């Protein structure tokens, strides 16, 4: 079955590149791109598998769970797999040309493939400690990638990120230890089974708080967001796209969903906490983004704001809200990586990221200009592009559930988002050309190709919402809705 290959292919590629990358020219580029392309094809193949079988369980080593580790493929898994592998394939295409500026390109590909292996492993695993191990693999690779350029500011940002991320992982491990002591098993379905027969007490609430703190730091919810505005601008542009696009969603939002909706019982206090944190994230991210001069720092704060939308929608708890949250997750992964790749293209051509020193680039960088326009309009919620539909669904779900104040705040934050993206477009692309930057050429071919492809996906996700995406998203939403029913499905599929 195809499930272990999502981890085997990136790991094998990483080790081979680390061994042979320095000796054979262009070997690392070729192997990395082949690897991510094959992962993309496999993840697209998993969609019809889920549509026919509903849930697939793979026993690693032939050991029956709960004695062994199992890998589970259901609707939410295949949705996240497609998102992660699509963005990572386009980012590896982009980084063939972008990373020429840095030394040691093969080490970049090794770390990148390790991070991808960690993320894929988190998505497909069905065992709680296995989740922690893959979480650590991905996190350590990302600490090293943020510091890749080894300038002074990048090292400082990476140090802050590494210390905060390590403390968060220790919280997660403490939660896993407490949960193991309470239920004496580590398999996700088995924990759900034994928690449903014991009385829910303070232990489960304490474990829920620990998991919220640990995974919340990885997803940059507002009390835990302080590492993100330093780490995302300091990384090289393809890594910023990966981090902001898929990393904080896999490690944070997906892990929160799996642990809270399928393993622990979801109480209304927990959903209320998610709504409050989501609202604060939306507002704080938007207000701090307006005041920025650095392009990538502004995009990083915008990420905090959009993740606030997703967590807010998850907290509402109705089926329509889950649909809106997952749709917004997919949209944001595509838009934000497109925007970060654009900022990388601007930096590649003009060597600066400061808004005050740029201007009038629309004539010299046409492809970058048009794709930035598409991405910004999509993320601000202009119809008929995708961001409009996902934000509309979230706001309608909020009004249906009775949260009128929150819905008003969400609309206001959306207007603020439009404001700072218009500021970005105005200062960068229109206006007079700065005299020092007269002769700038367009970015090389593969970078253009990946940006154009992401732009096309932005447009498609808006125009084809109903026929193409609905069954794809609906199977993911069903997994969240059935909650504790996850364990019955998993035990039914182990034969």
């Amino acid at each position, binding site marked *: 079955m195809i499930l272990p290959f999502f981890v085997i292919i990136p*790991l094998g590629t990483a080790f081979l590149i680390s061994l042979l990358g320095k000796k054979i020219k262009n070997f690392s580029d070729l192997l990395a791109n082949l690897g991510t392309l094959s992962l993309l094809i496999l993840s697209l193949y998993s969609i019809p598998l889920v549509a026919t079988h509903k849930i697939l369980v793979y026993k*690693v080593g032939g050991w029956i769970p709960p004695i062994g580790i199992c890998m589970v493929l259901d609707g939410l898994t295949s949705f996240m797999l497609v998102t992660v592998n699509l963005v990572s394939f386009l980012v590896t295409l982009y980084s063939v040309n972008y990373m020429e500026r840095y030394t040691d390109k093969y080490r970049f590909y090794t770390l990148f493939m390790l991070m991808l292996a960690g993320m894929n492993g988190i998505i497909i695993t069905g065992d709680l400690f296995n989740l922690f191990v893959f979480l650590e693999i991905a996190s350590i690779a990302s600490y090293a990638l943020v510091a890749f350029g080894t300038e002074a500011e990048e090292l400082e940002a990476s140090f802050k990120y590494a210390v905060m991320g390590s403390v968060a992982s220790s919280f997660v491990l403490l939660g896993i230890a407490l949960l193991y002591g309470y239920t004496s098993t580590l398999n996700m379905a088995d924990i759900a089974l034994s928690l449903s027969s014991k009385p829910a007490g303070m232990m489960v609430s304490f474990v829920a708080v620990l998991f919220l703190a640990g995974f919340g730091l990885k997803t940059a919810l507002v009390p835990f967001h302080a590492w993100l505005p330093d780490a995302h601008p300091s990384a090289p542009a393809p890594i910023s796209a990966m981090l902001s696009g898929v990393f904080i969603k896999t490690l944070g939002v997906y892990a929160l969903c799996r642990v809270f909706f399928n393993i622990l019982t979801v109480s209304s206090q927990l959903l209320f906490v998610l709504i409050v944190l989501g609202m604060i994230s939306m507002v704080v991210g938007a207000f701090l983004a307006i005041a920025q001069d650095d392009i990538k720092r502004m995009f990083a704060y915008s990420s905090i704001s959009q993740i606030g939308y997703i967590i807010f929608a998850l907290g509402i708890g109705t089926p329509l809200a889950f649909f809106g949250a997952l749709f917004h997750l997919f949209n944001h992964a595509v838009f934000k990586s497109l925007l970060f790749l654009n900022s990388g293209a601007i930096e590649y051509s003009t060597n600066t990221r400061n808004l005050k020193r740029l201007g009038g680039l629309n004539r010299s960088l046409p492809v970058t200009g048009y794709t930035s326009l598409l991405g910004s309009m999509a993320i601000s919620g202009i119809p008929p592009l995708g961001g409009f539909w996902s934000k509309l669904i979230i706001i309608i779900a909020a009004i249906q559930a009775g949260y009128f104040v929150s819905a008003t705040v969400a609309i206001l934050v959306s207007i603020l988002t439009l404001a700072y993206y218009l500021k970005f477009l105005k200062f960068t692309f229109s206006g007079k050309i700065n005299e020092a930057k007269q002769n700038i050429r367009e970015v090389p071919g593969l970078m253009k190709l990946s940006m154009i492809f992401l732009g096309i996906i932005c447009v498609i996700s808006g125009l084809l919402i109903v026929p193409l995406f609905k069954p794809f998203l609906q199977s993911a939403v069903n997994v969240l809705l059935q909650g504790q029913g996850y364990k019955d499905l998993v035990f039914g599929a182990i034969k």
Partner: protein
Amino acid sequence: MKNPEKGMTLIVKTITRLTVGLILLYGIYIVLHGHLSPGGGFAGGVIIALSFIHLMLAFGKEVALKKLSQAKASILESLGAIMFLTIALLGFLGGYFFFNFFLHKGKPFALFSAGIIPLCNIAISLKVGAGLFAIFAVLILFKGAGEKE
């Protein structure tokens, strides 16, 4: 007076000459008996790395790097990882990833038993040992290059 890169005093050098080989042997013993007694790949790999680091601390970095240079340590590390992945992939012969595919699993408590577990231990010990020594060598070499400029 004394060049600090030449190593430690005469007492330390003599004792190191006597014990470094025994430490390496002890590490290999822990790796190979990983399926019978506590230890296994991680602990044994760390002890093997420690024997090389002991050599570096007592004699100075040139002697230790002549025995195992930093480039060779990187190659050994990648080879250990690829060996581990190959053993896991060979499990597909038995039908599952990581399957214990040896037909004849041997008697319990004997040295040649338990299928693929000793091979996995050897691969992990290569990776952990070579990796730890490579980290140490890179940090030492970086500090040396920083001081000379």
